C-alpha cells in the first residue's frame, strides 16, 4: 500500500480518537483551569488552580470521592468473590451447558437498565417481596440496597472476562497439581488463581471504572446521605451550572481512575514475585 493510502486508512481511527476522546478531554481540562463566569458558556478562559485545589480540599468533594472509591472498591471485591466461582463453574461445566449458562449471565442486558433498577425498588421496598418474605428491616434507600444494585448490575462484567480466561486454562495443569499432591484448595491458590490474574484485572477494571462514577443506582436505591462523586458532578454541572468546578471534579476522578489500576498492577506484580520465591 502506498504511503498516502496507509495514512488515509490510519486517519479514520486517529481522527475518531482525536474527535471523540482527546478533544472532549482537552476541553474538560481547559475548563477545569478556567474561571467561573455568569454567561453562556458559564466560564471564561484563563489559568487558575483554584478549581482543582477547591475540589481537593473541600470536604464535600473529598468525602464524596472517598465514598465513591469505597463503594466501587467494595463492589469490585464483592463481584470478584461472587463472580469467580460462577465463572469457574461455567468454565468447568460440560461444553453443551456453557453457552446457555453464559446467556443466563448476560440475560439482564436484554431489559433496560432503568427498568431493572426500578424492579429492585419494588423488590426491596418496605412492602416488597424480599423484605416481607425474609422479615428484614427496611432495606431500600440504605447502603445495603446501594450495594445490592451495584453488584447486581456489574456482576456480568466480572464474570465474562474471568470466564474467558478460565475456559482457556489447560485442565491438565489442574490435574498435574493434584497429581503432585496438592489438595483442591491449594490447586486453586497456586495454579488457578495466579493463572487467572489477567482475567481478574480485566474484570476488576470493567467493574471499578464505571462503578466509581455511577450516579443512577445511588440516586435510585441508596440513601440521601450517601453523596457520591458521580452525583456531585451531575449537580455541579446541571443544577449549579458551575462548569469549572464540575470539570475539576472530572479531572480528579480521571486521576484516581488512572492511579488505581497502576497501583493494583504494581501490587499484583509484587505478590507474584513473592510467590515465585516459593
Amino acid at each position, binding site marked *: 500500500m502506498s504511503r498516502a493510502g496507509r495514512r488515509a486508512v490510519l486517519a479514520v481511527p486517529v481522527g475518531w480518537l482525536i474527535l471523540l476522546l482527546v478533544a472532549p478531554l482537552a476541553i474538560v481540562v481547559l475548563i477545569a483551569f478556567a474561571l467561573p463566569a455568569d454567561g453562556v458558556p458559564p466560564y471564561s478562559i484563563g489559568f487558575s488552580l483554584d478549581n482543582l485545589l477547591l475540589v481537593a480540599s473541600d470536604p464535600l468533594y473529598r468525602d464524596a470521592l472517598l465514598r465513591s472509591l469505597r463503594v466501587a472498591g467494595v463492589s469490585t471485591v464483592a463481584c470478584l468473590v461472587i463472580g469467580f466461582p460462577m465463572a469457574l463453574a461455567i468454565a468447568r461445566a460440560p461444553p453443551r451447558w456453557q453457552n446457555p449458562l453464559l446467556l443466563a449471565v448476560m440475560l439482564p442486558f436484554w431489559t433496560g437498565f432503568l427498568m431493572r433498577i426500578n424492579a429492585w425498588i419494588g423488590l426491596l421496598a418496605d412492602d416488597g417481596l424480599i423484605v416481607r418474605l425474609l422479615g428484614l428491616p427496611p432495606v431500600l434507600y440504605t447502603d445495603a440496597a446501594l450495594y445490592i444494585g451495584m453488584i447486581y448490575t456489574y456482576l456480568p462484567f466480572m464474570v465474562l472476562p474471568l470466564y474467558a480466561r478460565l475456559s482457556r486454562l*489447560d485442565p*491438565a*495443569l489442574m*490435574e*498435574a*497439581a*493434584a*497429581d*503432585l*499432591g*496438592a*489438595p*483442591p484448595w*491449594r490447586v486453586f491458590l*497456586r*495454579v488457578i488463581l*495466579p*493463572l487467572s490474574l489477567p482475567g481478574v484485572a480485566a474484570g476488576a477494571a470493567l467493574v471499578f471504572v464505571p462503578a466509581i462514577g455511577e450516579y443512577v443506582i445511588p440516586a435510585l436505591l441508596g440513601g440521601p446521605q450517601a453523596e457520591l462523586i458521580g452525583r456531585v458532578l451531575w449537580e455541579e454541572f446541571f443544577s449549579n451550572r458551575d462548569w469549572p468546578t464540575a470539570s475539576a471534579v472530572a479531572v480528579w476522578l480521571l486521576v484516581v481512575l488512572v492511579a488505581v489500576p497502576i497501583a493494583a498492577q504494581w501490587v499484583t506484580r509484587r505478590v*507474584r514475585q513473592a510467590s*515465585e520465591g*516459593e
Partner: protein
Amino acid sequence: MLTASGLTVRYGSTTALDHLDLTVQRDELFVLLGGSGSGKTTLLRTIAGFVRPEAGRIVLDDIDLSALPPHRRPVNTMFQSYALFPHMSVAANIGFGLRQRGVSRAETRRRVETMLALVRLEGFGGRRPSELSGGQQQRVALARSLAPSPRLLLLDEPMSALDQSLRRDTRAELVRLRRSLGISFVLVTHDQDEALEMADRIGVMRDGRMAQVGTPAALYEAPAGRFVAEFLGAANILSCVVDGCSVLLPGLGLAVHAARPGVNGRGLLALRAERLRIGGDGAVNQVEGVVTESFYAGDALVVSVRLADGSVLRVKRSLADGLGAALVEPGTSVRVGWQPDACMLLPE
C-alpha cells in the same frame, strides 16, 4: 506391586475399560500399547485417580488406591502435554510436589538441584518453561514427576511431542534412568517400536481389555491371536488347517511344517515378513508365487508376492548385499521359503 482387578469404566454408553486385570511388578517398565480408543489412557488415568472406575480395585503395595483422591496417591504422572506450570520457574515446577508433601524449602532446593542434574538441565532452574525447547520441557516434566519419589510413575505418551531423532535418544535415556532409580514405570504409547524397544513387559490393549501381556519377544514371536500378530509388526496371515506340526494350506493344496504343534483344526498361519526369503534354497517350507510389486523402505526392500490362491505374502529382503542384489522385477516367478520356527499358529 500394582494390581488392578476387574476395572470397569464407562463413559455414557461406551465402555472404556471392561473388567480389566493388570499386574505391574516391582522395578519394571510396563508398556500399555494400543490404538486410539483402546482404553490405554483411561487405564493410566484410572490408576492416577482422575477417572473413577465403576467397578474394580487398584492395590499398590497393600494400599488400596481405589478410595484415594489423586493428591493422596503415592503415584505421579508425566503428562502428554507436559502440563508444566507456565507461571512458575523450572525449579518451582520441579519442587512443587515436594513442597506439597511438606518438604522444607532448603531440602526442596537441594532435591531440585539433584533432579536438574539427573535430567542434565543444570543451571536451568531459574528459567520459565516457555523459554525451553520441547526436549528440555520434556525433561523438566520428567524431573517434576520423579522429584517426589513416587512408588510408581505413569507416563502418558511421553515422547509423542518430540521429533524422531530426539525420540530415539530419549527412549534409551528413559530406560537407563528407570533402571538407576529402581522405580516401576507404566508407559502408554501407540508406537509399537517404542514399546518393543523399551518395555520389560508389554500389555496390548483392545476395546478396554488386555489382549495379551508378555515380554516384547514373547508378544512378537508368539502372539496369542490375530490382533496382536497384526498390531505388533504386521504379519502375513493365511488360513490353514492344523494337524500337530503339519499345517495344511487349503488354498495352495500343500502342507508346511511348524516347529511347535498348534491346536488341531482350522486356524491361522502367521508369518513375519522378515522371516521369509525369496529363493527357496535350503528352506524347509516353500511356496511359489509371482512378484507384484516392491518398495524400498530404507533398511529393507519389501516385496509383495501373489500366491496361486490370490493371497499375498509380504517379504522383507535384507539389503546386506546392496539394493541391486535385492531388487526383483514385478512379474518374476519366485519361490518363497521359510523355516519351521517362523510359523506362528493362531486360533481362527
